[in-house]
């Protein structure tokens, strides 16, 4: 690792923690990959060995080429990479850029003396911005590029302040709410000092997004990207989402679902837990006058993230479960991450099972209920303590251990209920009665029915494991008794299927 101030560290590309610069970086990576076929590792090598060539030579060329490729339906795509200039031997920024620009003019100049850049598709984000303007000829276009690359002092006002003109997620210069007397303090200079080449990343920002087209409703079109603070993690996941979106043209899955499938896949590969704790989905959609509609940031709470890091828990929650008579499915992990309660879903699922409509998903239901009950218990216990408790910094390890212990204890103890009767019919009847009391959340009736049915069974009612479990998990439990109650019902139904 280099110490700060050494030149190499300034050149290497990595996330900064500022999401709009980071998304621009991702866009930059996507761009280079699309045009030159470099993946992240190759790009990093290139930047390490010859940063000037990448930023001043390959980048402007790639940007223009990509824009033209998009317009001409990938006609240019077939051009062989060998035809591209190599910027042999030169290390001078200006010289590299000149060489690159010469190549651009030689190849892409149109009859009007203009590089035919267009602000369609994702470039709509920069509608009428600098060199996209139809009136700008090659000289002006070149000069704008020089400004962006920092080869020339900034002349265009739009680049001095980073505001709504270049980043739609920001207010305009005058509107910055808390700085009434100066205008935006985020100037290009400031940014460049913190993140070199950040103006480039401002330009590549829209390329970091994946577009979801909804043919029926244009308003539902949106560009979305997955953002976490780990570059490699974000890069891989976005790549996967893109593949999935391209693959699933008929089946319109929600962005959230697709993203999560990608995340779960990548998780297994990368194991980058700290990134998992800082994840966002950023979506935007522009109207005709470039206003933002539908901006969304979806953060994933650290608690939920920590829990799904556990392989067994994740596997069991990573299932679709049927929850209503119409064939409707819910993806448990998605509900979990959104912070929705799983109990009602499992309840609906059991209702269907009771009516003999389908098979019980036992282990997924068991995990869902126990994870939820343990979280409730945990939250209750820590109600008065601070948010940043030792558990927070420990990634909730003790909670996860607790959940797993509970699962083995409860699945054994609650399974004993099967001894209540030999007959599947009786068990079904009891299950139904218990289920009804849970619906109205009536603990008194639940216990009453349970114990009345147990009363005739001398072995089971005096089974130490069983009565201790009931005492601890149902009677003495005022936070989550209904979840344990439901587990009993599940066990009564579970055996039934085998008989």
């Amino acid at each position: 690792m280099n110490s700060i101030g050494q030149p190499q560290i300034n050149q290497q590309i990595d996330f900064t923690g500022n999401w709009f610069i980071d998304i621009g970086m991702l866009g930059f990576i996507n761009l280079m990959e699309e045009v030159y076929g470099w993946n992240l590792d190759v790009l990093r090598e290139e930047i390490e060995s010859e940063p000037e060539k990448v930023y001043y030579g390959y980048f402007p060329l790639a940007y223009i080429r990509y824009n033209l490729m998009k317009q001409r339906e990938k006609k240019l795509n077939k051009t062989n990479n060998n035809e591209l200039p190599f910027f042999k031997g030169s290390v001078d920024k200006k010289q590299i850029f000149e060489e690159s620009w010469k190549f651009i003019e030689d190849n892409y100049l149109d009859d009007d003396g203009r590089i035919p850049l267009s602000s369609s598709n994702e470039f709509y984000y920069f509608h009428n911005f600098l060199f996209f303007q139809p009136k700008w000829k090659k000289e002006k276009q070149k000069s704008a590029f020089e400004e962006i690359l920092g080869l020339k002092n900034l002349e265009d006002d739009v680049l001095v302040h980073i505001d709504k003109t270049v980043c739609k997620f920001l207010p305009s210069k005058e509107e910055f709410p808390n700085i009434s007397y100066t205008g935006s303090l985020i100037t290009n200079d400031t940014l460049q000092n913190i993140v070199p080449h950040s103006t480039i990343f401002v330009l590549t920002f829209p390329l970091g997004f994946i577009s979801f087209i909804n043919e029926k409703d244009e308003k539902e079109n949106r560009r979305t990207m997955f953002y976490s603070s780990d570059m490699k993690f974000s890069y891989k996941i976005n790549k996967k989402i893109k593949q999935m979106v391209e693959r699933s043209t008929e089946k319109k899955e929600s962005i959230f679902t697709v993203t999560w499938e990608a995340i779960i896949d990548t998780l297994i590969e990368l194991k980058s837990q700290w990134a998992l704790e800082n994840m966002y989905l950023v979506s935007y959609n522009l109207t005709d006058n470039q206003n933002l509609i539908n901006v969304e940031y979806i953060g994933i709470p650290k608690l939920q993230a920590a829990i799904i890091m556990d392989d067994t828990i994740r596997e069991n929650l990573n299932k679709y479960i049927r929850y209503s008579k119409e064939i409707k499915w819910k993806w448990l992990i998605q509900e979990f991450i959104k912070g929705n309660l799983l109990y009602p879903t499992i309840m609906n699922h059991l209702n269907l099972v009771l009516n003999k409509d389908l098979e019980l998903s036992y282990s997924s239901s068991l995990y869902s209920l126990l994870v939820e009950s343990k979280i409730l218990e945990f939250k209750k216990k820590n109600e008065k303590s601070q948010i940043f408790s030792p558990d927070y910094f420990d990634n909730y390890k003790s909670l996860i251990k607790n959940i797993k212990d509970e699962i083995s204890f409860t699945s054994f103890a609650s399974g004993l209920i099967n001894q209540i009767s030999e007959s599947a019919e009786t068990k079904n009847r009891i299950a139904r009665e218990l289920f009804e009391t849970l619906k109205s959340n009536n603990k008194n009736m639940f216990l009453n029915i349970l114990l009345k049915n147990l009363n005739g069974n001398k072995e089971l009612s005096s089974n130490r494991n069983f009565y201790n479990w009931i005492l601890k998990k149902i009677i003495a439990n005022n936070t989550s008794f209904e979840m344990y109650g439901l587990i009993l019902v599940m066990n009564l139904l579970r055996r039934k299927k085998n008989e």
Partner: protein
Amino acid sequence: MNEKNMYYWQKVVGDRPISMDLEDIREAVSEGFKSESLNYKQKLVYNLLETIRNNDQKEFFYILLKAINKPKKDYARLLEQLNNNYDVMPEEAFVNFAYTVVIGIMATYDGGEKNE
């Protein structure tokens, strides 16, 4: 003020863990009823369950006290527990307490002497 009485009222507003107390009660009940006959206990449990169901605290304690109103040493600990815990309770607390008593009796089903 008595610690154990306090808990029921705290339960309504506060969050003290309760399992230890209930466990004590459960053990005292089991100890008391360990040598009664199975039939007797099953019938008793049935009657108790009926009263809990209606949240009839008066009847519950009436039946329970009648049952343990015997010159037996077994009941000493249970009587002490009742002495500490008896109160007019909010329903939530009563339900927890009463079912603990029932579970305590049921836990002795396999060990009772066949003296009937």
